Each structure stands twice: as structure tokens, then as C-alpha cells.
């Protein structure tokens, strides 16, 4: 019995040693700001989630993230990892006026796992925009992490 236990332990010790976490990244490492669109209806005095037909969105002086994207109920995008603020433009339809949105935040690099490395966590301080189409901005969850949560609501 004791020699059987010794051999079983030897095999299982070998199996335990294989556990190399630096080779595996099995968690979501995207830290993206999630924005929902809400449209205000005067007739019912209620706000409802809405869909815009042709959304164009991107950071100022950068490539577009969404180009005339149909049927969008919101946006999901990365903030600048190097600066403490990011500015974006938003056009809800090809004929609509363009609004500029500014996000101000603090950044904190955060270790996720040995295999995934480091991601950037953000904490939103303020969000403001021009008011051509956007009526109001609401911060729902200022912490932007790998958790899938709605961070900001844009009211139209």
C-alpha cells in the first residue's frame, strides 16, 4: 500500500508541476467604455432606449470607430491609455449635426493574470459635450474595468 501511494504521489506531483499560468490568458482583458442611447419622447414624457440608423463615431484626429453603422443602441470603445482625457465626435445620422464629447478620467494600470498581463482601469471624473443633438449626459458607472457594465447614458 505504501509503495503504491509513493508512486501515485510521484505521478500527481508531476501533473501539479505543469500548471504554468503564464501560458494561459482566459479572461477578458478589454476595458472599454460602454455608452447607451436614450431618446426623450415629449408626447409620453418618458425616455426609452433608442436605435440610431447611421452612427459615425471616433476620436478627434483619429480613425473612425463606427462609420455610418446602422441600428446602434449604444457605443463601446477604448479611452486613451496615455492621456487623462479623450475627445470624440458623434453623429447619430448622416444628416444630423455632429457633437463633440469629452471624457476626463484617472487611469490605473492593473495586473489581471500571469498570462494576460496588465490592463488599464479608468475612473470617469467628468463627461461633457456640445449640445447640438445630445441633451444630457449621465454617468452610470464611473469605474471602467473588464466588467461589462453601462458606464454612460447619452440622452437625446
Amino acid at each position, binding site marked *: *500500500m505504501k509503495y503504491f501511494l*509513493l508512486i501515485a*504521489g510521484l505521478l500527481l506531483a508531476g501533473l501539479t508541476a*505543469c500548471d504554468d499560468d*503564464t501560458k494561459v490568458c482566459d479572461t477578458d482583458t478589454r476595458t472599454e467604455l460602454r455608452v447607451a442611447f436614450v431618446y426623450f419622447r415629449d408626447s409620453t414624457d418618458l425616455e426609452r432606449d433608442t436605435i440610431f440608423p447611421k452612427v459615425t463615431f471616433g476620436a478627434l484626429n483619429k480613425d473612425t470607430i463606427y462609420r455610418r453603422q446602422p441600428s446602434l443602441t449604444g457605443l463601446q470603445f477604448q479611452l486613451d491609455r*496615455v492621456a487623462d482625457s479623450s475627445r470624440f465626435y458623434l453623429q447619430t445620422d448622416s444628416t444630423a449635426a455632429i457633437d463633440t464629447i469629452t471624457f476626463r478620467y484617472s487611469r490605473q*494600470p492593473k495586473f489581471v*493574470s500571469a498570462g494576460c498581463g496588465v*490592463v488599464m482601469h479608468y475612473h470617469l471624473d467628468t463627461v461633457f459635450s456640445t449640445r447640438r443633438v445630445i441633451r444630457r449626459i449621465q454617468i452610470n458607472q464611473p469605474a471602467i474595468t473588464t466588467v461589462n457594465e453601462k458606464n454612460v447614458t447619452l440622452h437625446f
Partner: protein
Amino acid sequence: MKRMSRSIFSTLLLLLTLGAAAQEAQKPKKDTAKPVTMMVPAGLRIGLDISRIAVHYFQPYRTDVTVNLDARYNDRLYFASDLSYNRTSHEDENYTYRSSGIGLTLGINYNFLKRQVPKENFMIYGGARYGLAFYSYEVPEYHVSSDYWGNYTGSVPKTSQLAHWFELTVGIKVEVLKNFYLGWSLHERLLISRNVSKQDFPPLVIPGYGKGYKNSSFDMQYSVAYLIPLYKVKQAIKL
């Protein structure tokens, strides 16, 4: 892997239970004979955890050395200690990491088996330990990648830290040659210094503990040991 560790733990616990139960089953049913107490040789047992060689083979960025010490106190009780050294050096596209340090655990082992033969040196034991590690680490470079904005590069300067933990263990030791032992043990460690694992960049490895970014750590050791006979202890033997 966590599931596999639990399966290993369960399998070996089952084997240990069967081993202990087998001894119970061998007992005569109506034995009224009183146990005989006699003096048996005891001393300091010094072992080397050879599973660290396999760890280095499968995880080349880790270099570990663990020395196991135990000394018999009485019939069933042993003082036990592990001395560990770790050096870690990892580099990939995400980050570069370097650390080194030493760890120490102090505690006791309790032999679950009653000896039936005076010179039988086979033990199935459970134990508890307090562990302490002193180490330093640095992250010379890490990257947070972004296709849209470009990569962010940062670093963590060299820091020295202290971590401590509580540990439960079960295992076996078998005397395969005179004073020469082979054995393995399972270790479940619970980090007391929770602030260590919650840092923005925690240590990858805490010497003697394991993965420094986790609040609990499972480990298995496989040791070869030599007993240096130094003194004698009283032992109850049921003949």
C-alpha cells in the same frame, strides 16, 4: 487546472483515508493487551523537494529550492519546517518580471498511524504551518496594448515585501532504505497578507507560498529525506 488540483487533492485524500482505514481494519476485535512503551531512535530528518525540478522544467521562468526539516517530538507529534528559495525571471510580449526571495514555514505534523512494529517507519500525517516570506521584485517593463490608441508602457520599481500565510498539509513518508525516506505532501495555503495579492502588480511567485496574485495556493511536494538519528523518544506499540 484548478479543477484538476481539486481532483488530485481528493484522490490523494481518498488514498490516505484508505491507507489509514486499512490499518484500523487489521486490528484484532477483542484486544485487551496494553500497549508497550519503548524507546525508539529519532532525530532530525532533512529532505529536499524534488518536485521543484519538475516545476522548473514545465515553468522555466521559476527556479525553486525547498528543504524540508522535521524532528520527532513524541509518539505522534513532529516539529516541521520548510525553507524555500525562489528566483523568477519572466519575459513575454506583455511584461518583463524579475524577483527573488526566501520563505520559511514553521509548524507541526501529526502521525495518524499507530505503530504496530517498533521499527516501522511509515507515516500518514496531517499538519499545520505558519509561513513567512521575504522577497523583492520588479517589473522593468509592461505594456497595455491598444490597436486604436497605441501601446502604453509602464514599469514597477524594485520593491521588497514581506508576506505571511497559514498552511494545512497532509502527506506520507516511507522509509525505503535505512534512515532514507521518500514522501509527498499536499499543501493548501491561505494568504494572511491579503494586501500583497491585491496590489496593482502583485508578485508572480512568493517563495514558499506559490502564486502571489492569489489569496490561496495549492501545492504538492515530493521529497527525498535522510534521518539523522540524534536522540530517542518514547513510543507506544501495540503488539
